[in-house]
């Protein structure tokens, strides 16, 4: 067998479409209102590093082709990504859209009004798709690929998640209603996307269990749990407020 080709020899058509390799995430700017307690310094996690069963979830909508081509759908999705998210959840994406290597902070609302602060990195982006990958402590380890493809008389917009729950707590949460809530979340997102192009359409949902075994050796992922850390952060809010007041008084004095 010959040696591997260099990137130039191989053509490497995808070099600019992938994020550059990073050991740990770095959030260059924290927008007002965003919380960056579970992203900075975290490593990315693929389904290989997750704890729970492995799932592939696919959500699709069909938009009439005369309303939008696949490239138009992806361009719009990238540019206005936060606009399509369900109420109560917020993504602080860069204003420029979605570019490989971008890190976005997320504030999610979980059952019981619990706020969860986490984030994602843009792993891959081209004219037909883009992929977000999760950091340590996120609800799941894996990635979400958003894509669009041309059908006969329609454009199929799709969100596909390949994931394992990150730790035993999130696995329990997913089992006790979290999966259903996630289905609702992505159904609302895709309906909002279709609605942007002027169509009220049903979302096709397909869920496949790729691996029904849990990776018990990964239970220690719980150390990074964004649920636990976000809860502690919320509980400590009064103490932070007092500390802030005391510091201000010292400065004024």
């Amino acid at each position, binding site marked *: *067998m*010959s*040696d*591997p*080709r*260099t*990137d130039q*020899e*191989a*053509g*490497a*058509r*995808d*070099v600019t*479409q*992938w*994020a*550059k*390799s*990073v050991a740990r995430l770095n959030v260059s700017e924290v927008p007002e209102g965003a919380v960056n307690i579970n992203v900075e310094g975290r*490593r*990315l*996690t*693929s*389904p*290989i*590093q997750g704890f729970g069963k*492995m799932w*592939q979830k696919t959500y699709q909508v069909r938009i009439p082709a005369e309303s939008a081509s696949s490239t138009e759908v992806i361009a719009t999705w990238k540019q206005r990504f936060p606009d399509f998210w369900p109420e109560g959840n917020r993504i602080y994406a860069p204003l420029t859209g979605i570019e490989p290597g971008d890190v976005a902070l997320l504030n999610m609302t979980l059952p019981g009004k619990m706020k969860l602060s986490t984030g994602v990195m843009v*792993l*891959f982006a*081209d004219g037909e*798709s883009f*992929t977000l*990958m999760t950091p340590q402590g996120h609800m799941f380890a894996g*990635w979400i*690929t958003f*894509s669009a493809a041309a059908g006969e008389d329609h454009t199929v917009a799709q969100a*596909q998640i*390949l994931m394992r729950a990150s730790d035993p707590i999130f696995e329990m949460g997913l089992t006790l209603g979290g999966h259903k809530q996630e289905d609702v979340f992505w159904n609302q997102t895709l309906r909002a996307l279709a609605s942007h192009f002027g169509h009220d359409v049903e979302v096709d949902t397909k869920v496949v269990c*790729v*691996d029904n*075994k849990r990776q018990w050796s990964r239970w220690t992922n719980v150390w990074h749990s964004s649920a636990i850390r976000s809860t502690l952060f919320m509980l400590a809010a009064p103490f932070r407020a007092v500390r802030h007041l005391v510091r201000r008084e010292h400065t004024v004095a």
Partner: protein
Amino acid sequence: MPEAATTYDVRGVAEGARAIDITGDITAQSEEILMDAYSRANETGVKAIVLNFTGLDYMNSGGIGLLVTMLVRAQRAHQQVLAYGLSDHYREIFELTRLDDAVGIHTSEDAALAAL
């Protein structure tokens, strides 16, 4: 992405080891041919699958997802998965997506087989 030149050939490389020579692209559209290649490689007694990426031209995130799915199938069958022939760019992608945690990456087929 064009799939016409994409082939995944299977050959025996050692006792209990099969190589899959990947030529062309790995994208979400490659699911059928990748899983077909894995099924052909997955004979009784096979303990290692060696992925030869020397001829890889293009890979997107859908392709990485397929490799993870194939890896899970191999792990269920108690098989080791190894890779060689990755260019610097694709080696970086394996590191970025942390596939290198589960796939042994080597510089040549000989080095991969020596690691078995």
